[in-house]
């Protein structure tokens, strides 16, 4: 048995691959659910109902999908250029922290403050990824290691700040940072829900990223550099500039995720505000085959798993950690599925 490269990947396979990956992941996870003593079909039924069964659950799911779209875009942009940004989680947190810090005492009206805070969050995320990108370009330091480890440093730093200088004196129990001023809370998209207009920003961001990647010179250079770096270099495309540009864009998107989450949902920063949005963004990007439109769909799916798992856990007693297992399995099965879209099996 051997693998043979397909000369062309047909469209139906491109669409089928993530579906098959998700199905396989759910199948594998059902073994664990059964081991917990619950009928997997019942559990998945509860999951679906919990995420999509009511107006409230749908808005809750979309609230969860919003940061995932941003972090998914961040990963997709970077991975297309073979920049392995595993640091979405850290970039999310610096974006959130900078937004809360500046937004707490910024004395301008909301219509100007909100864009400013978004820019601040983007700048923070971009700056955090610029370091690893520079180290890779200058010294060949593996960015997988640096970006991954920076996540832990950033989260510990956030912990330091919210128990120290940025501590909210009015918060009880869990330490939290000072909240953003009420002027900078994003308006609700659906009344009496947590869903805010950040979802629209996220969808707009997906459109903008698509436009940049598909239509601009920068996008074309990124594609070339990602697919064949030496040919791109031979053609006069500056690899350092391209990689750095990609790093800034990717970091900015992940930082924006944190910024929007603070202004839209949490107001203050806590170390538990992200159930792994940065890491899940990698899964989202992979399930989307790195396509911006696919990112929106994949984010909705992953959010469904996250939100649905909580409901399932309440109803059936299966630990909600199963959500992390399912999402992680999706990444593995999607990688296998991608293999089968580019190669065919022959005897």
């Amino acid at each position: 048995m051997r693998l043979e490269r397909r000369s062309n990947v047909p469209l139906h396979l491109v669409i089928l691959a993530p579906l098959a990956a998700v199905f396989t992941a759910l199948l594998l996870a059902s073994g664990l659910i059964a081991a917990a003593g619950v009928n997997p079909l019942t559990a998945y039924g509860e999951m679906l109902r919990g995420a999509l069964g009511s107006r409230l659950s749908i808005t809750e799911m979309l609230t969860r999908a919003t940061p995932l779209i941003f972090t998914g875009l961040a990963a997709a942009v970077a991975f297309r250029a073979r920049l392995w940004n595993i640091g979405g989680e850290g970039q999310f947190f610096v974006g959130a922290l900078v937004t809360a810090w500046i937004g707490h005492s910024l004395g301008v009206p909301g219509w100007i403050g909100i864009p400013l805070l978004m820019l601040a969050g983007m700048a923070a995320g971009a700056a955090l990824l610029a370091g690893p990108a520079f180290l890779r370009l200058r010294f060949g330091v593996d960015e997988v290691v640096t970006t991954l480890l920076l996540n832990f440093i950033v989260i510990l730093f956030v912990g330091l700040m919210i128990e120290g200088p940025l501590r909210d004196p009015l918060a009880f129990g869990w330490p939290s940072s000072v909240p953003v001023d009420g002027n900078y809370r994003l308006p609700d998209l659906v009344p009496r829900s947590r869903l805010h207009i950040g979802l629209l920003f996220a969808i707009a961001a997906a459109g903008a990223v698509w436009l940049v990647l598909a239509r601009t010179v920068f996008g074309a250079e990124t594609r070339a550099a990602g697919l064949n770096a030496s040919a791109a270099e031979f053609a006069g495309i500056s690899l350092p500039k391209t990689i750095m540009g990609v790093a800034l864009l990717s970091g900015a998107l992940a930082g924006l995720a944190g910024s929007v989450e603070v202004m839209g949902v949490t107001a203050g920063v806590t170390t538990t505000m992200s159930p792994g949005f940065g890491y899940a963004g990698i899964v989202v990007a992979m399930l989307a085959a790195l396509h911006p439109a696919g990112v929106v769909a994949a984010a909705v799916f992953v959010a469904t798993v996250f939100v649905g798992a909580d409901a399932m856990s309440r109803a059936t007693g299966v630990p909600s950690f199963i959500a992390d297992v399912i999402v992680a399995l999706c990444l593995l099965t999607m990688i296998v599925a991608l293999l089968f879209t580019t190669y065919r099996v022959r005897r």
Partner: protein
Amino acid sequence: MTKVLELHGITKRFGALTANDDVTLTLDQGEILALLGENGAGKTTLMNILFGHYAADEGTVRVFGQELPPGLPRAAIGAGVGMVHQHFTLAGNLTVLENVMLGSEPLTRVKSARGEARKKLMDIAERFGLPVKPEAKVSSLSVGERQRVEILKALYRDARVLILDEPTAVLARPEAQKLFETLRDMTKEGLSLIFISHKLHEVMAASDRVAVLRGGKMVAERKTAQTNAGELAELMVGRKVERPVRHDHQIGAPVLVADKVRIEDGGQTQLDDVSFTVHTGEILGIVGVSGNGQAALGALLSGLAHPASGALTLADQDVGHLGPRGMIRAGAGRVPEDRHAEGVVGELSLWENAVLERLRTPEFSRRGFVRQGAARAYTNDLIKRFDIRGAAPDTRIRLLSGGNMQKLILGRVLSNGPRFVLANQPTRGLDEGAIAAVHAELLAARAEGAAILLISEELEEAVALSDRIQAIVKGRLSDPISADEADPQRLGLMMAGVWTEDENAA
């Protein structure tokens, strides 16, 4: 006579492509068979089936009358088949002996039997006339010596049938001749040999029998003594292909001048005190054995490497430190040595590849957005002008044949009206028809006044196209000679580095 090898009715398909179509081939004891064919004719596929790297879709392989199970290299080795790959499979950080032993000892063995292995290796080396130093590190060996180690590796596993894939691709002519003498001696020790080649002269010189593959089919078999190079060429290509002829014309003013250029990479001198001048309407040929500094010269003229000392000027502008984009802007067109690695991005479309070098010019972008319409129209023009077949602007370029891919690269270079063109191994791996087309384009560019530097390992090509020729040896360039004075013997001497003391010997 005993048949040591019988391939019967071998068919192998890769997707829609039939690489081997009902091929039948036999080999006699003590015979040297040349497997001749153009690139893509299916030679290597056939040998990989024989060796068990691939499993045939149909057909059988028999070695000494025993049928081999398909797809098992181990079975082929066990039956006495040895293969010497075109790209060596040696570990540079191990010694000759260690490389030879590698894979022939069971992993479970506690102590390695170095002593015995060494004795066996030396016996074989003695018997077949292949002298080696068993304790030398492979990385310190020359290319010819490495090939010897590859052959010994096969013999160490008791190979009685040896397959050599393009064995002379990396060798200089004297080395190649020596190799064929050695191979002839080896047949006297009872070995049978198949060597793969697309070079007519070595097939004529070294084989007993020739099998010609074309488009996956076995089209002819000839006793070498009963055929000639002309007949074989026609059989190989399937028709008569005439390469274009260079006509003398007036050479103009200097365009590209290298003055005492030195290039270093990783502390090693790659080019040393290199000077040359290319004039308007002139093709300057650089000949030499692979690995003598051609890569550094190509990188310099592409803008990827910069002189540590000395100067490179293009139309009186210092271009040594400009980088690829600056070189292009200064009027240089570059055809890279390796199409797939440097020439194109395989997963991108024709049009994206066609404008890759000029994405940031107003012709193909406005306010940071790519002008896709203009790019597609331009690509359509190239397809028509340069006769690129089987493609539309949106076709992914890796689906093109090597010849058509090269035509696109040439088109993107020549349509830009370059003052200077670097043509680095422009016909490597192309079939006869495509070679003729590439030669015609280069000669047309010369007629229009471009200054062209041709780096080639094919002497025939260099002599046919060049007005003047210089040889590159160990990073140094010989003085130029006019193409009219270039005969194979003199070029052979130049490529061996004999030029300083022996300028007019030939």
